[in-house]
């Protein structure tokens, strides 16, 4: 008997059977590999944290070094408490919900440091990173950035060492007590809190700048900020008021001048 491969019944049955087989196959592969994949992801995340601390993650046993050097904490009610749950591999939603993880660790050079996870958006997809800050919470000791789908050779270069190493030693806060660490156009970095962006990847560089600013601002209570006491705040607000007044006066003067001219 020869099957009529053009009949409707055959076509529909063929499609149905094919879809069922493929669905089972994919479900089987996905569930069989899930554990290995999750272990890989957790290990990779630990490697990224260690990388921000200056370790070469390709050259060390990530699991062992992480267990020895890094402690996962949660910052709540003004103090750090050791984190008890399972190791997290994504921090975006946690930060949004106010669960602020801070890793206490020692860098590859033996300095004590805090590692702060940050998340943001690049040109095509998500960005994330880990920023190691000094014990005094005012300067960067190291960074690690990675991305979901930035363009290879352009935006993807934020994951390269030369870009990340530029942040080392940079102060986090400006004189106004706000996060001032930022990424500017490639080759334009001059101020001590500016870092060169990636050529040809302005939007990704801007994404990193926004991620660093927002990420560190979310941890402002933990980091403290330069002179962030109530008194300093008052002084700063007063200064801003004065500035606004001056601007206001000068605009009035200008408008009066134009009135006279008219």
């Amino acid at each position: 008997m020869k099957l009529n491969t053009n009949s409707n019944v055959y076509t529909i049955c063929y499609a149905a059977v094919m879809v069922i087989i493929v669905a089972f196959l994919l479900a089987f592969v996905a569930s069989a590999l899930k554990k290995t994949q999750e272990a890989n992801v957790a290990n990779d995340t630990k490697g990224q944290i260690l990388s921000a601390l200056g370790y070469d993650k390709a050259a060390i046993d990530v699991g062992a070094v992480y267990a020895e050097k890094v402690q996962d904490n949660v910052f709540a009610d003004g103090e750090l408490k050791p984190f008890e749950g399972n190791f997290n591999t994504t921090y975006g939603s946690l930060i949004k919900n106010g669960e602020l993880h801070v890793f206490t660790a020692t860098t590859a050079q033996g300095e004590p440091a805090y590692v702060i996870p940050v998340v943001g958006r690049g040109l095509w997809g998500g960005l994330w990173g880990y920023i190691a800050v000094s014990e005094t919470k005012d300067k960067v000791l190291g960074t690690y950035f990675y991305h979901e789908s930035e363009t290879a050779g352009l935006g993807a270069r934020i994951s390269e060492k030369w870009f990340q190493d530029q942040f080392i030693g940079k102060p986090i806060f400006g004189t106004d007590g706000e996060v001032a660490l930022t990424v500017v156009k490639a080759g334009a970095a001059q101020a001590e809190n500016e870092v060169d962006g990636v050529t040809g990847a302005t939007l990704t560089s801007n994404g990193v700048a926004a991620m660093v600013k927002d990420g560190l601002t979310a941890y402002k209570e933990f980091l403290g900020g330069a002179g962030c006491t109530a008194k300093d705040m008052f002084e700063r607000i007063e200064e801003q008021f004065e500035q606004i007044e001056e601007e206001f006066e000068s605009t009035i003067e200008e408008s009066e001048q134009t009135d006279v001219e008219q």
Partner: protein
Amino acid sequence: MSKLFSDENKAAFTNPLNVNNPVAVQVLGICSALAVTSQLKPAIVMGLSVTVITAFSNVIISLLRKTIPNRIRIIVQLVVVAALVTIVSQLLKAYVYDVSVQLSVYVGLIITNCILMGRLEAFAMQNGPWPSFLDGIGNGLGYAAILIIVGFFRELFGFGTLFGYNVIPQFMYDAGYQNNGMMVMPAMSLIIVGCVIWAHRAYNKEEVK
């Protein structure tokens, strides 16, 4: 053995490498030539992934070719390719995590590579599994070759490096040489592909198009 490597089978393998190159002659798969070629390494890995997937989807479709209902053949081909790509990307994630991170979305995008659909429709639907396998390997390598040529020039002139290592000596920079930022831009890959096609056609003059 002689049958396995008959002239016809040999042609299935060698044609796409030169006179019937999928990128240079058929002008397929241009979009990925643009996306992954700004550096040499992703270009090579992408070329190899496409080679493997084209070969195996060709074999599967060739085995199924007599049972596939004509009206839904494109859908069947697409399902086979998509399933294969998904399995490969899952395996990469489980066993060579670093490579999968490096390729990121581009593994998934292999599904939409028109070279695959083109070969399945034009070759695997009419030929047996072994010639189809050779045809898949040949086309994949033909594609990889162009990607590597483009990646080579873009990385060399765009960054002054190859595989991430500096190859342009410092005294050249001291003498005023600069990396060409244009090379890094996606548009430049199309211009280089254009140059490759030009050179290819000048070399294969007998080709009438």
